[in-house]
């Protein structure tokens, strides 16, 4: 039984309607993402102190002057949490973007060209994925040294394997369709087939995957920073802030949990939005 698919003209009215119908979880997620974006963009204006400015004694308690105290070097925690939005989230976002660029282009090429290109890319990815990515990242970072650029590249390359797999899989579903065959028989070139025939049909799962990948990359980078191998001091970063101040927890002070909660809150928000998006578009493809 053919259900009339929802293929509306793009219009603001439709977007508003979609928003109004969204469940509380998705709205909550969107609000969270908005707050983080604002914090990241306007960090210098919002934060009471500078990112690396030493403004007081070490481990000062919560006060009017320092709403959530100071850290192990006497820097204002709140300011660092705000700057963390810019650093941690920004770096994770860049990494995800890079991973997507590599993974989706490779995946589209593999699915469209098939043959030896597909074999080569596929086998390479199989091997890369046979090593757990955190371990692989650790190994590579030991060798090339821990710097932000190295980390971005290493994680992006490792993560692009998952993007490749997904892009290839969903593209394969589209490539076998008669309309792609029809375009090939018309004599269309590779670029047209990838850009016009396949991409519009895999956009929805790719967007959802972007959200999920972002969460994964964000958590991986936070974990690396927490382990002292990611974003390096004195840059304000949530993962390393937890690590630097972790001793407080054994004294019953939960301040170091705040940056950890900041990480958790954003991933929860993104996951909620993606979950809703997937639910909305599940009629198209998984």
């Amino acid at each position, binding site marked *: 039984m053919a259900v009339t*698919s*929802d293929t509306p003209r793009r219009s603001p009215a439709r977007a508003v309607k979609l928003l109004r119908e969204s469940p509380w979880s998705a709205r909550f997620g969107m609000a969270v993402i908005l707050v983080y974006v604002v914090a990241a963009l306007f960090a210098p204006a919002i934060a009471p102190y500078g990112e690396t400015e030493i403004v007081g004694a070490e481990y000062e308690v919560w006060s009017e002057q320092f709403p959530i105290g100071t850290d192990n070097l006497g820097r204002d925690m709140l300011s660092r949490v705000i700057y963390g939005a810019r650093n941690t989230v920004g770096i994770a976002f860049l990494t995800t973007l890079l991973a997507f660029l590599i993974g989706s282009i490779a995946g589209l090429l593999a699915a469209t060209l098939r043959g030896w290109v597909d074999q080569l890319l596929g086998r390479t990815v199989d091997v890369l994925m046979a090593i757990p990515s955190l371990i692989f990242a650790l190994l590579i970072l030991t060798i090339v040294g821990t710097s932000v650029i190295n980390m971005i590249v290493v994680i992006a390359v490792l993560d692009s394997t998952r993007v490749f797999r997904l892009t290839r899989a969903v593209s394969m579903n589209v490539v076998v369709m008669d309309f792609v065959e029809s375009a090939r028989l018309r*004599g269309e070139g590779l670029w047209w087939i990838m850009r016009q025939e396949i991409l519009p049909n895999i956009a929805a799962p790719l967007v959802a995957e972007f959200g999920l990948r972002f969460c994964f990359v964000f958590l991986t980078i936070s974990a690396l920073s927490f382990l002292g191998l990611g974003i390096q001091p004195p840059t304000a970063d949530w993962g390393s802030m937890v690590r630097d101040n972790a001793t407080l927890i054994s004294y019953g002070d939960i301040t170091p949990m705040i940056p950890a909660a900041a990480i958790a809150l954003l991933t929860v928000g993104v996951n909620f939005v993606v979950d809703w998006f997937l639910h909305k578009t599940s009629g198209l493809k998984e």
Partner: protein
Amino acid sequence: MTDANGDDLLLRIRGLKIEGRTEEGWNEIVHGVDLDLRRGEVLGLIGESGAGKSTIGLAAMGFARDGCRLSAGTIEFDGRELRSAPESARRKLRGNRISYVAQSAAAAFNPAHRLMDQYCEGPVVHGVMGRAEAERDAIDLFERIHLPDPEAIGFRYPHQVSGGQLQRAMTAMAMSCRPDLIVFDEPTTALDVTTQIEVLAAIRDAVEQFGTAAIYITHDLAVVAQMADRIMVLRHGLLVEEGDTRQLLSDPQMEYTRDLLEIRRFRVEERPRPADETPVLEMRGVTAGYGASTVLHDVSLQIHRKRTVAVVGESGSGKSTAARVITGLLPPTAGEVLYDGEPLPARFDRRSTDQLRKLQMIYQMPDTALNPKQRVEMVIGRPLQFYLGLSGSKLRERVRALLDMIELEPDTFIDRLPGELSGGQKQRICIARALAAEPEVILCDEVTSALDPLVAEGILKLLDRLQTEFSLSYMFITHDLATVRAIADEVVVMFQGKVVESGPKSEMFTPPHHDYTDLLLSSVPEMDPDWLDRLLAERAELAKQGRVLKAADN
């Protein structure tokens, strides 16, 4: 059939309404249908897709698919109201007193269990018989419906048994508790015509032997004519007409029913093959296959200008592979394809733009042949831009002209996405896309088989009109002999990758024939309610003479 008001009424449905869930909420699919069924009676439900016939069939079991609900009316089975009955009560009836035969037995048998386990499950769970007794009974039934090797077949897994046999095994399974009513939901639609006969015969035998009542759902009037005592014609969730089979077929009251009966009468006058002309398209001694398996063996055929060649055969006959060779998707291992007497490069990406342009293709499934993200204007406009270099207002004008040609109002349709079109409209857009390239030859791969009969006929008429208007040649790949009768000038019969017979249409429909052609031709159901009886009798007679006509599947 005895008195209508009497106690022998088995199923009585009144004012049945069924709703389906959509984005906007609940949407009514069936708008109040009444249905009566007496014990031992076979009722045919017929209609196009979306008529609600399957939904009604399932509702007779007090069942609604996920996303559907029985919103109003009463369903009385043997005096018991099912719609308001608790689920546990309905469960006791299902599989026990009412059972179901699904469209695709291959999908409806659980791949993880042997046929015998699935057969015995019903009787054992419902406490009708013990496991050992059920197994003996299964073997007995398998034998009665002429399944080969009835002792052993039950111990196979579904994927080890062919489609036609599975469908018969499913009929046997439906009989396992000796129900009062069986719902047959398009049980032969997924099968080839030659396989269909045996399944139809098995179903009819089984139903007659046990005096079981049945609801037989199909979109094929000729099939239902063989099976049903009475027919209900449905459309858009409403009853159109109801009557005894013979009476309905000979004297239909409603126009829609008359249209359904008319369908197979459309005929194009056969045009003889022009003498001494180089065929526009020719396959010469083509052998091709995938990997190690050869699908086509030395196939030759010719298509002349302004003519239609129909290539007929069942699934696996290699007819679609032939099309792939012609289009250059599958380079042959031997032989060649000639265009206007000149050999075409074997691979499509070695062919010139002009060679590609002259040979267009229309697909079986309009749903997958159109990019769901491209609007009609782009779908039709792209070949114009790509081949003919049109752009701007010229392009738009031409698209509108093409929409006119395929009888779709340009203003209404030019901005639509495929999701906003019906099946027939989509197929028309596909035709316009092929036409936009200004081709000489169009390959039509089962272009009507995914469509409802009336819509399909509209497409055939359109293709016929366009052929004269634009001097087109068609290669029509089909398994449906009615389509062949309607539109072909010449016929090529394929069987297991070989051409077994070919010639002008008039010759092909008069005996004598190759055995396979005979089997194929005689297996096409006719509207005559006595057709199946006569055919089975004829085949039995032939078998006595030692000439066995049977599907490869058996």
